[in-house]
């Protein structure tokens, strides 16, 4: 039995179709990424998967339990971090966690132990009795994730968990996601950050305008959208672009001003070759940038394929 099974899931707001007949499965123990630009329908989908809003048609099964027919039972085994959610700022971190425990019917003793563990793990223990309104954004987000873990869920839903956070908190949350996954939790993660999806996910669904363009492992997706990345370089002297064409992994070379734009599947390797080339020819590299395609680019490329 898969962790999540989605059939024909559709949501309309008036005449506008936000989520358009989605079909996919999330396997047990994987980190499944839902990658798409703003307005793609990620949050709407996540809300339907977690029973927060009702779909217009279609079915969602959480560990085989139909979330519409048996919402309480399905919700009991999942953890949810909504996109713009908040802890109760007038309550302490501790009381927020205890409130969650009570909502999930966790016995007091177990709840105390679990809250202590989670506060330690998220480095919030010292502040456990402080009201949440005194917390920084990163601390709040850590607490919200801790709240979603109080019931020790089998499946964790995270809707853009790192959006708007500083580098340090982002890093911490990413590490936490990997660790939770290692402990055996299935994770459904939405993001608009390709790099984040790439780093964390076993499989990624690319979504836009409520449709899934592709579902695949990150590396395989990259292969399918190859040649969209480019390296921009300029040297202190003009160079013969045919030298560059000879480099490995080049898809195309374009000249723009004194800069050269090298389209490639492997920007990292290209950089090595460019450094070697400059040494060999006694050139100095003036600028060197690597660029990744936007999500919109990828989506267009992927939908062209279909």
């Amino acid at each position, binding site marked *: 039995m898969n962790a999540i099974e989605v059939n024909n899931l559709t949501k309309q707001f008036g005449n506008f179709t936000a989520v358009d007949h989605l079909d996919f499965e999330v396997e047990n123990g994987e980190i499944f990424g839902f990658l798409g630009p703003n307005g793609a329908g990620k949050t709407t989908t996540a*809300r339907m998967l*977690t*029973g*927060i*809003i*009702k779909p217009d048609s279609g079915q969602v099964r959480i560990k085989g339990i139909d979330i519409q027919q048996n*919402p*309480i*039972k399905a*919700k*009991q085994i999942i953890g*949810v971090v*909504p996109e*713009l*959610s*908040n*802890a*109760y*700022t*007038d*309550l302490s971190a501790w*009381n927020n966690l205890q*409130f*969650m425990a*009570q*909502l*999930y*019917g966790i016995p007091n003793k177990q709840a105390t132990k679990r809250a202590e563990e989670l506060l330690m793990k998220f480095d919030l223990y010292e502040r456990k009795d402080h009201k949440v309104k005194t917390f920084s954004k990163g601390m709040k987000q850590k607490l*919200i994730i801790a*709240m979603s873990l109080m019931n020790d869920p089998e499946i964790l839903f995270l809707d853009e968990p790192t959006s708007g956070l500083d580098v340090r908190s982002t890093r911490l949350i990413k590490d936490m996601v990997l660790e939770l996954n290692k402990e055996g939790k299935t994770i459904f993660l939405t993001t608009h950050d390709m790099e984040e999806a790439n780093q964390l996910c076993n499989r990624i669904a690319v979504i836009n305008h409520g449709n899934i363009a592709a579902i695949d492992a990150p590396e395989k997706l990259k292969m399918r959208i190859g040649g969209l990345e480019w390296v921009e370089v300029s040297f202190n002297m003009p160079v013969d672009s045919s030298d560059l064409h000879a480099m490995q992994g080049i898809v195309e070379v374009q000249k723009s001003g004194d800069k050269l734009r090298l389209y490639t599947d492997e920007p990292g390797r290209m950089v090595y070759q460019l450094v070697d080339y400059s040494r060999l020819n006694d050139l100095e590299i003036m600028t060197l940038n690597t660029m990744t395609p936007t999500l919109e680019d990828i989506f267009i490329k992927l939908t062209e394929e279909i």
Partner: protein
Amino acid sequence: MTMIDQLKRAWAISKKDIMIYYLKGPVIIFGLLFPAFLFLAFMIGRDLPVDFLIAGLLGMTIFFTSTSVTPVIAPTETQTRNLERLAASPVSITTILLGDMLASVLFGIGISLVPILLGIALGVAITHPFTLAVAIVLASFCFSAMGLIFSSTPTSMTSTVMMISTMVKFPLVFISGIFIPVGELPQWGRTLASISPLTYITDLCRYSFQETNYYSVQVSISALIMFLIIFMIAAVKLHEKSLPKRL
């Protein structure tokens, strides 16, 4: 999942509400100050018996306090974005509303002790304490459920909900036999009074103090139960509709 589980979770929601909302501005203003001043404004200088006054004050207090907590919760949690968390947890909308209602009920019952103690201090005898207790509890539930109907407006503005609820509550005070006994009203006034739940709790208070009731105890109690059921069913239906619009 059993009903007992859901009731326990409702109680958890009540405790949360009590910790957060009892001291919020709108609750204090609309629940405590407003009825106190309204009462003073209409009573000063009028020569009415003390037990009549206290019964009216008690009815009004339960009415205003019980309807002041529930309307604050939903818009506030919409605005502070706590609602989605709650909607994601394994509790039904009925459970959430029950929790909110319970917090409101306890507030109503607690504050209603003030006019009762005031009455006792002024020498008012409570002839039927048991009936009074039942009446207060029942009325608190009834008015809390009424407050839930106001709060189903899908807004994050507490002031909007408070305005709507005041527009309904204010006229009710004048048609419910608080300032003029129902028996002394003209026929149309009596008809109007009979559609207000506030009439029945005030009448029950009058019965409990000095047996100057207009309706029989059975009629008043049944009426309050009926209003409670209607309000609760309506509240659940309305909130089921409005919750997705709040996210």
